[in-house]
């Protein structure tokens, strides 16, 4: 096979797929954000940005992602390291760590609401142990930061496994000799981690961070379950404009905002976690 056309042949199925099932519908929707009855206008973006809820929504989404994703990376690295060091119990522990993958975010929202609500498990435990007398209202709209923390915990629980699975699949390829060589040179476990594991995991980390951050910008079901109407996020507002307010143009504008910040984050990760082509052995 010709070496020049081979890559294009390999890419062809995926490209056709994405063009037909994503790009074409996407262009139809993106079109809506910039037009009214066929004429070009920025009116919808203006409507979107001048809405009193827009900036809180925007920053809520960004801040949530900015806090959750780094925490998840640290936790996933820890979990991956743990799994790497295990021998006989590895399959079981790995399975346990990946259980949250099977849950939809709606189910995760239901579970964490059952933990945090006024008559929920956390309050039951606190009251049962005598730590507090009456149940604490965690999810009241006045304690926005408590709701934030609850959402962060729920998202940490739900989605860290995604990062972990990607890292674990990349860890198996780090040659043992590297670690052995590092040990010969006197590197302790932490140094081996930083100097051998992390650099070799760069491609996997890049993939995991990009995919996870994009998903974090689209957080929705857990926020709605725990925060109700007090923690608006971009996807929630998109749906509100599309379905409740019946304004598909402004909804498309919101969706484009999500797309733009996702692309921005992707470009950052692509640059920061770049592995030069010749650097793999």
């Amino acid at each position, binding site marked *: 096979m010709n070496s020049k056309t081979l890559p294009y042949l390999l890419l062809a199925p995926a490209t056709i797929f994405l063009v037909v099932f994503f790009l074409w519908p996407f262009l139809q929707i993106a079109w809506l954000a910039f037009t009214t009855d066929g004429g070009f206008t920025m009116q919808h973006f203006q409507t979107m940005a001048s809405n*009193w*809820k827009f900036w809180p929504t925007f920053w809520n989404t960004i801040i949530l992602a900015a806090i959750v994703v780094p925490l998840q990376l640290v936790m996933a690295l820890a979990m991956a390291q743990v799994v790497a060091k295990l021998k006989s119990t590895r399959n079981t522990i790995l399975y346990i760590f990946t259980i949250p993958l099977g849950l939809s975010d709606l189910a995760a929202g239901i579970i964490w*609401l059952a933990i945090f*609500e*006024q*008559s929920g498990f956390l309050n039951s435990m606190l009251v049962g142990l005598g730590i507090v007398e*009456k149940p604490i*209202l965690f*999810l*009241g*709209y*006045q304690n926005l930061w408590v709701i934030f923390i609850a959402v962060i915990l729920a998202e940490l629980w739900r989605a860290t496994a995604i990062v972990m699975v990607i890292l674990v699949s990349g860890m198996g390829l780090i040659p043992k000799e590297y670690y052995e060589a590092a040990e010969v040179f006197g590197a302790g476990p932490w140094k081996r981690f930083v100097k051998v594991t992390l650099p070799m995991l760069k491609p996997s980390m890049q993939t995991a961070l990009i995919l996870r951050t994009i998903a974090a910008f689209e957080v929705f079901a857990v926020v*709605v379950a*725990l*925060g*109700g*109407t*007090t923690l608006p996020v971009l996807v*929630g507002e998109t*749906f509100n404009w*599309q*379905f*409740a*307010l*019946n*304004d598909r143009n402004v909804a498309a504008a919101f969706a484009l905002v999500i797309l733009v910040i996702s692309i921005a984050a992707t470009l950052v990760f692509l640059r920061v976690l770049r592995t030069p082509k010749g650097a793999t052995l």
Partner: protein
Amino acid sequence: MKRTLKTLAIAVLAVGLAASTANAQVLFWSNQAVPVEETQKMREQVLKAFPGGVDFQPQEPGPFITRIQAETEAGTGAIGVVGGLYGDLANFADSWVDLSDIDLSGVNASPAFMELGKFGTSEQKFLPWMQANYVMAANKQALQYLPEGADINDLTYDQVIAWTKNLAEQTGSPKFGFPAGPKGLKHRFFQGFLLPAFTGSEVTKFRSAEAEQAWGKFKELWQYTNPASTNYDFMQEPLLTGDVWVAFDHIARLSEAFNQKPDDFVAFPAPSGPKGRAFMPVLAGIAVPKSAPDVAKSKELIKYMMQPEQQVATLLATNFFPTTDAALPAELPASARALGPAVQAMTSSPNALPALLPVGLGDKAGQFNQVYIDAFERIVLANQDVRQVLDQQAETLRQLMVTTGAPCWLPDAPSEGPCPVE
């Protein structure tokens, strides 16, 4: 191993590509009776006897709307009958088949609702399927905290505020609950209950001094409201868990509390304000989309749903009351027995002030609701200046009225041209 995997993969692909079998059932696409138990009852008790069978598929709002839009745009579809709230059907008023030729002899549907079913045109766009209302419910433990001389079936907003104040102070935490969650029906409360009770109007007096007073009263009430209310979509759960002792909500969203613990709760009418006891009914309708595969069959299903047996069965399944004069059976579930009389007391009270559902807003009904939701979130939750918010929201409301050209409806006085916002 590889070979078995390969054959398995091919087999799966083959099954997946096989065309689905054609089905003679009518597809009933609804956003009502979505809770799983209600769906089960609809299928087993209401729709089972329809000749040819019915495929009842309840949806959340997003997929509900998207599928209807897709079929309208594509020109053909699988949906036979659509069931939804008045406002949902108004969104697609042009897509519904004229139902005037359905034989409704033997069925006396409420004339007011039949009129609403025309969406201001001469065609019968939908038939009234079922109706509901909003009332208040209280845990019996809360009754001892009622203020002196208050009659629970005839409360004023001031009395409710005093009551919830007593509750909060003497039980140590706020015990009033309000469905301020994302799926809560809070906008109907503001449109049909709070504002008309103080201003006598739904639209025209939106930014009047009386409206300011109304919002002030609600802010007072909010002090004694459980702050988790912004998470509550259905008040039956907080009532059952005891987080809330007094609540306001749609009767179908209070029913579970009465069904599980009938002896613990009472239902009573919404409070009255200076201008009367305002209330807004909920109306669900059934329509036939123009893209339906078999319009004649769909019309048969609609006729079937209007018959007295099905109207009563619907009540038992969904806690929504008939829109016809179907006779109610003696054996009703606990929720219907408690909530029915409360609705009756409210709608027939001497100072009853019915506020109608918005008419003529078409697909802007959602934006109309958002005006009131935003007013609530800004004034009550975000504590913004009442006068400023009312003026800004009134501006949005005014533009909406002008764009849609909708004339005023009850309780506002009729208008020439778009309903003005003073």
